[in-house]
């Protein structure tokens, strides 16, 4: 019985972690200059759970990755960008790593 409980708990934790996206991408309005990007990056890096941030003016995209086992809720992200002076029009959670997002954006800009 104890083994069964342990296995179940392990499975649940595994599913929970698998549910965390590797990267959270936000579509943002008003993102037109480097100062905008700088302010947003500063705001998002202030979250203890943040591991990396990518901002693309071209794609109007802000991507944030979180540390292992940690998360930032959509509500917190939306509030952070609103507090920075910008408007979030969409949030999606992707399995793609933030490095892959960075590479994709680099390729798109060439």
């Amino acid at each position: 019985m104890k083994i069964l409980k342990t296995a179940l708990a392990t499975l649940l934790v595994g599913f929970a972690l698998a549910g965390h996206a590797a990267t959270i991408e936000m579509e943002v309005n008003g993102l037109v200059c480097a100062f905008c990007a700088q302010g947003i990056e500063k705001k998002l890096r202030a979250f203890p759970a943040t591991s990396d941030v990518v901002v693309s003016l071209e794609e109007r995209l802000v991507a944030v990755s979180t540390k292992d086992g940690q998360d930032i809720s959509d509500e917190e992200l939306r509030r952070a960008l609103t507090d920075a002076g910008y408007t979030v029009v969409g949030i999606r959670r992707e399995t793609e790593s933030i490095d892959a997002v960075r590479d994709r954006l680099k390729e798109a800009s060439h």
Partner: protein
Amino acid sequence: MLTLIRAPSGACAVLALLCAAPDAGAKPIAFANGTTVMAEYGAGTMLEGQAFYASTYWLSSGGGYVRFNSDINPVNREIAYLRVNYLAKRWNLPSAQANIFVWGGLGSAAGNTFDGTRLARNVGAQFDYETRRVYMSAKSDLWDCSEFSQRVDTMQFGFAPYAHDYSTLATWFVIQARNYTGQIRHGVEWAALVRLFKGGAWIDAGVTADGKPQVMAMFNF
């Protein structure tokens, strides 16, 4: 989709008494929890330095120094001031942003046409619209004290030869028209500027129509 953000109206009242000074097209508030340091040499007519800290994206405060040298007669005026900047309205569009800023402050004015110092009052406002390829701004600044009253009105139109991104150098070509009142200068002063910025560093450099240099540098961190 057009998105409007209205800054809280409570801070408006703080501004009514305070004053400001012009800069060369930059926004008076860069970003929340950010410090902005700026210096401008305006064709020998105006020299200015400023430092502001923004506690939110819609409010910053700080101080500066501005000196005006008249092109008309041997008059100079200088003002050291404290200032509050307020973002009254922001429009966040998908690929553009527009803002209305107002500011105000109080300062200590001195000059070579009077002895001692006078209390100076100032109010100003700026509208700007920006995409990654087009920039325009209109700004008006009023300085007033018992010895003089003067206004500096500045319009800028800029275009970028390419759309920059966060990690790339932004290059802009800017045409500026500036008008000084209060016996500082007759007629509109035209200038052509090259604007470069990357990360938190920004520089404008160019010349006026009568060949005088204009330079502005700004750092946000």
